[in-house]
């Protein structure tokens, strides 16, 4: 079985200087690390590994991103592909997933399953996985929490709007892996030594993928970031006065939406109840 895990190097600190001219992060100022969610995707692949499994790790990034490929090899991946080219820099999720798809088609032919992290810690769009499934024209499921493969049938489970969903699809396919399961293992020291001394990283350029200047980097990225800001959180004490019934009504009127979105289901409020009563009395009338 051939597995491809797409991973990304992200800055180690969350607060980084912002370049107001290019509207991108000044990534060179931070130490890089493997995106935390990508570790879960890699762990899912490692748990599927049998004797006949080949795990390819693929990343697009600056030359320093080689480090996370070596780390993945230290953890048990078999080979690393590094797409690195100044022409690929500045790609948005659309351009990234297109470039990844080209690389997978060319260098990972006959793949069975592509695994991605569910999102990155630096931009948190969660778009590359699903877009890559489209580009590769394979079935894709995001945020999976369990998976099993029986011949060419993939079964995955995920939590979706508080429901547990089990889905089946034919391979080849793509999944993005939730961070709620597949807790990543630690790298062992002998693995690091081997990953640097015994493994080669294969480098891929934009030319290798046949991408023209119009098809790369910022030119091919329709996304424009207008502004980036830190959301402000505010703590405020609100005093509700009146009879208990009035207080509860006031509370629900003010916070119904927020509670609903936090718990993921509708509250049964006064309006619902009166609507229900109307319906019941209506039903009673028709019977009578």
């Amino acid at each position: 079985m051939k597995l491809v895990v797409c991973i990304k190097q992200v800055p180690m600190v969350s607060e980084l200087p912002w370049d107001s001219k290019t509207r991108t992060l000044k990534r060179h100022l931070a130490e890089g690390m493997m995106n935390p969610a990508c570790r879960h995707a890699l762990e899912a692949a490692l748990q599927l590994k049998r004797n006949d499994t080949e795990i390819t790790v693929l990343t697009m990034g600056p030359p320093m991103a080689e480090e996370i490929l070596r780390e993945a090899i230290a953890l048990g991946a078999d080979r690393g592909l590094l797409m690195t080219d100044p022409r690929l820099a500045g790609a948005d999720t659309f351009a990234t997933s297109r470039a990844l798809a080209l690389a997978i088609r060319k260098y990972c032919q006959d793949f069975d399953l592509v695994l991605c992290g569910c999102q990155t810690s630096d931009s948190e769009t969660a778009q590359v996985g699903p877009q890559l499934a489209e580009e590769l024209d394979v079935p894709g499921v995001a945020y999976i929490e369990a998976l099993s493969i029986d011949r060419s049938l993939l079964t995955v489970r995920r939590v979706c709007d508080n429901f547990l969903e089990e889905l089946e699809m034919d391979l080849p396919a793509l999944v993005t892996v939730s961070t709620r399961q597949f807790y990543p293992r630690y790298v062992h020291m002998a693995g690091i030594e081997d990953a640097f001394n015994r493994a080669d990283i294969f480098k891929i350029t934009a030319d290798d993928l046949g991408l023209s200047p119009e098809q790369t980097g910022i030119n091919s990225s329709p996304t424009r970031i207008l502004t980036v800001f830190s959301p402000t959180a505010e703590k405020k004490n609100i005093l509700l006065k009146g009879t208990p019934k009035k207080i509860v009504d006031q509370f629900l009127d003010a916070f119904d939406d927020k509670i609903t979105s936090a718990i993921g289901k509708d509250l049964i409020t006064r309006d619902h109840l009166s609507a229900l009563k109307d319906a019941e009395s209506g039903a009673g009338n028709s019977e009578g």
Partner: protein
Amino acid sequence: MKHKLVRKTVRSFAETELGPIAAEIDRDAIFPRDVVEKMRPLNFFGLQIPREYGGAQLDSISYAIVVEEISRVCAAMGLCITVHNSVGAYPIVKFGTAAQKRRFLPAMASGERIGAFCLTEANAGSDAGAVETQAVKENGKWVINGTKIFVTNGGVCGTALIFAAGVTKDSKKSTNVFVVEKETPGFSVGEREDLCGMRANPVSSLFLENCRLPDSHLLGQPGDGLKIGLVTLDTGRIGIAAQALGIAQAAYDAALNYAKERQQFQKPIASFQMVQSYLAEMATEIDAARLLLYRACAYKDNGRPFSGEAAMAKLFCSTVAGKVTGLAVQIHGGYGYSKEYDVERYFRDAKVTEIYEGTNEIQRMVIARAQLSQLK
């Protein structure tokens, strides 16, 4: 890039697994066996042991980084790892026969057996030739009697290297080193020491009462003991230097953060020049210590003599650790003297790095000897 990855990996492990418990296991003097179990599959007990015996066979800079990063979070466990690897297992790697390596190293590399180095006695330490533990040959077996004190990892060791005095064929006094396993009849562990720092490490006395061992447990040739001890301690000093550096780094990081947060006279204390002067000195000396340590490691990896360089690194790193942890307490003021803050622990842990694996006075002798021999 490899060394950076080693550092990130070990830092992440140490902060996740040891960070939350470091203060507690220091306070209650607990050896964290569950963390040891997590360390074992990551090769922390076989850092420089060859692959054929189950080790990771790391280069010396990687080794120093592992010890530094563990010590940065929990010096007592950094001590466990460095003593096990550099003075517990390394002498067997360096001086053991093929049969001894096959017999003793795999269990040490996996961490199933933790190593200890037993030179110090009530009347022997810096004067290594003065050990009073006796090894006498009787009916083809060595019979060992004596008491070892201040044995790091003593309470949990599975394999101990015992230095014992003997007599050569021409009736001269000599020192031998034996590999003694804890199951050997007559081998027992004494009370755990109640120490100032490194309290999570079960430093104990060891007793040897008529322990009978065949020749296959003697390391090197009869009379090689002192030579083995000195060569081993050269490597051990790299580990202790790395440990001291880790403690110093932790203290500096804490002091820097505190100085930025702590307000006096409506300003962070980091805005005052006297505090800045402390921080500048601390940062500079830690950097110099690190470079001195990595030079000794590079010499060792390149097969160059490194005895003087390792002693310089140990002397300087431990002195810096003493100074930096003291200044970190000073910057924290009264809070730094309280167990509520980690710098109090760093301050206690740092002191012993100036004492063990050769006091800093002995390091000066080693450095002077290396310097003077170059003049010849």
